[in-house]
């Protein structure tokens, strides 16, 4: 087990709704931006402004006039309590400010105090409170303990989505120079270099050439992993973790094999070498748009006809639901394909057409379950039917694996639990909330292991994969029990002309 300087929850058979304990997570704050450039590059003040009080209220007023969601959600909550036991962070920490409504109220009580009749004249009666320096710190603390996973919004009778409130709160904090180091540093890197990790072009080229060699050694087939190839049909935009981290890179190998078998030309782009868009995490439309425009620019420069996204959860939300808005219209692309398309849609389509050959026994050493990534599940779709985002990845997995089982039905599909690391929380300074927030998912996984002999969990999100790798050891699980969906595809796919002996060492998952 990994060592922790906090109490790691013990896995029980069920996650019982805990009795609340105030303030258990009040101490946790992610690092604040230290280098002012990381704020100013994003268009925010370098450090906390002196007139933060007025600026905060100004920004809140501005946002509620620009986002109907914010205005309606601040007004409509009746405090019914429906959401109170739905957040994985509440279940793992018992802190009432981690209940969705508790989190929302941190902003709502200020909204009521300054912008509603009742709150202006009868603050005590309606729970309105003055904006103080402590309020800001509370916001900073608790709005960075929300992974914007939208689970609460499924169960709210008015669809109030705490993610929208968190995004607004983070945008307000950024606008007064009180930004989070992790997110802002990364967005600054994307603006400068093109990806979250700051990988320069030559490093990516080196990686993909290495992959070509590996795949050739393994299969005897020259599968290409092209970079910046003009005139290719497809631009693949994938999370930068796919270029080096395990198990992400095994997924990238899989995409390449699928493209190879499909016989399409494709390319990665140095400047759009990142699917993730942290602009969403900080609620900044402007930054989200700027990050999205790289993809449009790359698609135009390379002259591609289609855009396909790799395995990434929040990224797929921005891609599926926002890209057309932020960086559209995409009338220069082939109208016969959705823009953008998910790699699982692409692969599933080929499977249904019978264009891919698999040796499913290559995955026989594993019993797989699938973790529905929160933002894929509750903010996007795949295919042309509602719920395709659940069926298509499962269909891909079942086509390449003999042993598949679902986790508890209350923890998958639209009810899926976040991995605990989404929404700008995937940083070591937030490890405590990441570990505690993973409790419901880990519980369901452990049950699937105990009851069905599950050995591995597959995911289609870079954050989930990194988070599981880091967090599973705290719960006594192995870090390599998390696999990419296209890693499974890669294991099982039989390439045309592939040499047979030792093809696809399935156990590479353990690498």
């Amino acid at each position, binding site marked *: 087990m990994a060592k922790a300087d906090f109490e790691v929850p013990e896995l029980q058979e069920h996650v019982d*709704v805990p*009795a*609340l304990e105030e303030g258990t997570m009040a101490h946790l704050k992610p690092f604040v931006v230290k280098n002012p450039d990381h704020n100013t590059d994003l268009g925010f003040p370098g450090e906390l402004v002196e007139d933060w009080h007025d600026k905060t209220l100004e920004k809140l007023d501005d946002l*509620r006039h*620009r*986002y*109907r*969601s914010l*205005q*309606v*959600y601040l*007004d*409509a909550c*009746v*405090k*019914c*309590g*429906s959401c*109170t036991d739905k957040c994985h962070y509440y279940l793992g920490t018992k802190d*009432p400010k981690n*209940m969705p*409504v*508790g989190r929302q109220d941190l902003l709502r009580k200020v909204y009521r105090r300054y912008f509603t009749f009742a709150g202006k004249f*009868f603050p*005590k*009666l*309606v*729970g309105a409170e003055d904006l103080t320096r402590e309020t800001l710190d509370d916001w900073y603390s608790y709005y960075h303990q929300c992974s914007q996973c*939208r689970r609460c919004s*499924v*169960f*709210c*009778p*008015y*669809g*109030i*989505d705490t993610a929208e409130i968190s995004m607004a709160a983070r945008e307000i904090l950024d606008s007064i120079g009180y930004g989070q180091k992790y997110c802002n540093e990364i967005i600054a890197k994307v603006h400068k270099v093109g990806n979250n990790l700051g990988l320069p072009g030559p490093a990516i080229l080196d990686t993909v050439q290495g992959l070509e060699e590996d795949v050739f050694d393994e299969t005897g087939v020259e599968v290409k992993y092209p970079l910046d190839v003009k005139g290719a049909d497809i631009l693949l935009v994938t999370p930068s973790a796919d270029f080096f981290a395990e198990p992400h890179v095994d997924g990238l190998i899989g995409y390449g094999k699928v493209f190879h078998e499909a016989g399409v030309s494709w390319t990665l782009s140095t400047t759009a070498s990142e699917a993730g868009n942290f602009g969403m995490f900080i609620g900044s*439309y*402007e930054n989200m*748009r700027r990050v999205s425009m790289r993809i449009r620019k790359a698609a135009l420069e390379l002259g591609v006809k289609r855009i396909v996204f790799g395995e990434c959860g929040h990224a797929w939300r921005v891609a*599926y*639901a*926002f890209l*057309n*808005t932020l960086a*559209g219209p995409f009338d220069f692309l082939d109208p016969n394909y959705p*823009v*953008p398309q998910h790699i699982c849609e692409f692969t599933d389509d080929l499977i249904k057409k019978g264009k891919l050959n698999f040796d499913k026994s290559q995955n026989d050493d594993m019993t797989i379950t699938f973790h529905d990534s929160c933002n894929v*599940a*509750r*903010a*996007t*779709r795949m295919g*042309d*039917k*509602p*719920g395709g*985002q*659940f069926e298509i990845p499962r269909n891909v997995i079942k086509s390449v694996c003999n042993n598949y089982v679902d986790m508890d039905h209350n923890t998958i599909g*639209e009810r899926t639990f976040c991995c605990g690391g989404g929404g700008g929380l995937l940083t070591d300074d937030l490890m405590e909330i990441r570990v505690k927030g993973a409790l419901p998912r880990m519980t369901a996984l452990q049950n699937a292991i105990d009851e069905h002999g599950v050995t591995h969990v597959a995911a289609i999100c870079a954050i989930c994969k990194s988070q599981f790798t880091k967090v599973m050891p705290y719960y006594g699980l192995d870090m390599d029990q998390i696999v990419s969906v296209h890693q499974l595809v890669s294991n099982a796919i039989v390439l045309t002309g592939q040499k047979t002996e030792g093809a696809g060492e399935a156990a590479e998952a353990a690498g």
Partner: protein
Amino acid sequence: MSTLYALLFIVATLVLVIGLALKIKQYAQTPAPLKIPTTPAPITEAGVVMRLFREVVFFESLFKSTKWTWIFSWMFHMALFAVLLRHLRYFIDDVWLPIELIQPFGKYAGFAMVAGLGGLFLRRIFVDRVRYISAPSDYLWLIILIVIGMSGLMMSFVAHTDIVMVKQFFTGVYTFSWGELPVNFPLIVHLLLVALLMILFPFSKLLHVPGIFFSPSRNQVDNPREKRHLAPWAKALEEQE
């Protein structure tokens, strides 16, 4: 006394109608810049209408969440709806047939309404999570509604008021020529709290009523890839470049 109540109800009606209209205007005019339906979501307009219908009539999301809250709140809201329909007969001269037919149910629905409210009240007190998020106003709303319901039930089942007089009073208010209200304690309380509710409606959490129809996570069609969605301010942002 009767004049006071007549004026009170005129003011209450104006505040309710104008206040709600302004709120609805605000919701309608505030853009929703991004497509954020909670998925799986309908991919057609008709599907969205059905989704909202299920949400408003059956409280679908609440049903998914917690059965106790669902039972109490659904019972309260549906009973309130029946009771409101029943009350129409006190405000219109030619009572429509459906309103006639609903009378017997409407009378007893009052009990379901109060029972549902009672359940919600107990839940607010005894569930620690709900207690934590409750402000004084959250309890007061339940108390106001319970007292409205109880005073109404008193008049139906215990101490009848002169309902013909009440009807003459209210139909008189339309032409500013109201008569006398009967002197009846439950009636005075009942009407006072109803007027209070109407006045507070646009300034309170009762805004969940129009709010649900404007909630982007429930009222948006899931078609962002097929159709470009662009808010006016976002368009202006693009044109600046």
